[in-house]
């Protein structure tokens, strides 16, 4: 991991994670739940957080790492302030969502899976948000943008840039 994304966790975050671990540890199969909560607390799952979970649940770090890297929802890298998620499900794909993704990448100068230098945006692709009636769609944070055209991407991104 490079220096830019060195881990800075607060005592408050640690206390929240410890509470989650305490209340979950007796439930069989709780690891995924703990990882989901931890990602909610820290925004991502750096090795430091995984170590805390492994120690808290009394399991090996390799097991935690194995699960954290298996599922696409878990991220080991920090995400942007605004998380862009372009749907590449079939219904969106046949309506040209690959061109939407390409345009977002071009506008931000980063690739899918990466985060901009200023930490404002990160791009991911996802498989079907279920708004197929609006295809092609992308999500920025919780907001869904539908019936997109490559030309409309810049204007949408500008809204978030200005709000910065």
């Amino acid at each position, binding site marked *: 991991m490079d220096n830019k994304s060195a881990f800075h966790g607060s005592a408050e975050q640690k206390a929240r994670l410890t509470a989650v671990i305490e209340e979950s540890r007796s439930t069989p*199969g709780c690891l*995924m739940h703990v990882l989901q909560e931890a990602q909610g607390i820290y925004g991502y799952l750096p090795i430091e957080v995984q170590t805390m979970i492994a120690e808290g649940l009394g399991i090996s770090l390799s097991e935690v790492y194995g699960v954290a890297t298996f599922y696409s929802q878990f991220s080991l890298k920090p995400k942007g302030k605004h998380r862009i998620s372009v749907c590449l*499900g079939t*219904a969106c794909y046949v309506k040209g969502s690959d061109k939407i993704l390409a345009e977002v990448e071009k506008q931000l100068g980063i690739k899918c899976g990466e985060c901009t230098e200023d930490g404002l945006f990160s791009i991911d692709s996802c498989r*079907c948000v279920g708004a197929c009636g609006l295809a092609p769609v992308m999500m920025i944070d919780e907001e869904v943008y539908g019936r997109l055209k490559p030309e409309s991407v810049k204007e949408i991104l500008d809204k978030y840039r200005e709000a910065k």
Partner: protein
Amino acid sequence: MMTNAQLDAIREKKKDLIRVRRVIKEEGEKLAAKTGYRKQVLVCGGTGCTSSHSMQVIAQLEKSLKELNLDDILVVKTGCFGLCALGPIMIVYPEGAFYAQMTPEHVKTVAEKHLVKGGEIVKELLYQGTVSEDGSIIPFAETPFYKKQMRIALRNCGVIAPEDIEEAIGAGDYQALEKVLKEMTPDDVINEMLASGLRGRGGAGFPTGRKWSFAKASPGNVKYVCCNADEGDPGAFMDRSVLEGDPHCVLEAMAIAGYAIGSNHGFIYVRAEYPVAVQRLKIAIKQAREYGLLGKNILGSGFDFDIEIRLGAGAFVCGEETALMTSIEGHRGEPRPRPPFPAVKGLFGKPTILNNVETWANVNPIIMNGAAWFSTIGTPNSSGTKVFALGGKITNVGLVEVPMGTTLREIVEEIGGGIPNGKKFKAAQTGGPSGGCIPAECIDTPIDYDSLLAIGSMMGSGGMIILDEDTCMVDISKFYLEFTADESCGKCTPCRIGTKRLLQLLTKITEGKGEPEDLVKIDELANHMKQSSLCALGQSAPNPVLSTLRYFRKEYEAHINDKICPAGVCKALFTYHIIPDKCKGCTLCARNCPVKAISGEVKKPHVIDTAKCVKCGLCIANCKFGAIERK
């Protein structure tokens, strides 16, 4: 604890209110008078419509009703109505007026002109399919989209408020559980399921009753009932719609299965990407516990059953039953060899049944109306209905439920409203990354489990993506292989390496580097994968390639031998040109070109510098004279 009498009282209280939403015209008006509400306004609160801002519609509606002092109108936030392309949708009963693509301004107009006393339907805001040429209003159930549908699994979706258990009870939920606990033995339940012929709606089509009978026969005091709500097929959203529109029907069915096989504990494994569905399930479970319909001693029968939710974390392979159970146990969601089958040794090593959401949604009607009724619907070996998520190049994108045996033509041309923009139907993709394509020449095939297998596709969970002449079949196969290569868990070699190698071969063909023997290699590799992969993901991953090769071999050959992509999708295989005779020199293309690859003087034919061109297609989309061609 709730008693049977209390349950009946809730049903009686809610009966008319819900019936108004199922019947319209005179009968609806008479009923409405009895309910205390002059009108009911139903707004879709499913993911499709909330994405097009139906929450703003509800907010405005409530505001307008307050301003106009209309306190005799009930607003109901429901699940999906099905016609997602026209969202947000709002239906006013007892008239059954079907308003489409509503905005807050439209809502204001409807409130002022229609919802006020003596008001009239605002025709120009209705879904235009419900307005006939002479201006009269057609009930939406009579429109082509709804007419051929038969709603069994979706019976309450878009009818009830899913966050209110009393509405669910009023609409018939928990009636089957009550009947089972009062009148039926576990064997009676299983025999009824067997006789109904219900097959798993998740894709494989295994008879549900047999699964249950195996689990009942397995010895042990601890058994589990699981619900597969990890709807991974991109483009399929029927399970989500059931959970969002009628979550109680799933809880009820799981409790019935628990009674039948001797289990007291259920798990619902649901995608974390479905926040609305998860939220509604949580509310539903909490309410069911409060009403004593989950928990200890349900309805005084002595039977205990409770349900926990487990969230998936984005892994397609977790739709496979053994992988799903491994994931619930908190591990990497990798499948394991079968046998032992889950009915013998499943979750936490105990006998387990796993059914898909849509399968569960069929249980209540089978118990209430009988297996004999259910088996008359559909075809002899595929009884009942199937829900399809219709998407892609089709006018009426949405959720449809039709009897098994309905032909693809009926779905595409009548229910779906045909292909937009005057394009030609090319194929329907069913079964997602595990399925295949049904080409235009098979459009009259009746759709059921066996007929789809016979033509090289599969039912799958019910995603149905319509493709038109602009879709390249090699590219779409590559799209699916990218998906399966990415989602392969890596445990077994045929799938891990096979998907990668197949993808490489397809990429090579779409880049114009294909050789004739590649098709032989694809065929050989695909068959090895089908025979030797550990789970259904790898066994079915070659299906999209094999089925397109079967029906669209010429397209593959055009890519390989002639180095052209007939659909004009594969960028390496075409260039853009301006036809000098047609070009008027309007300069629009040159101004739009993002890389300045087009040059020319005003009013004189332009030219495209193919070396600079990035093939974005903006020029062809904007040319008013049809002067640009792709070849």
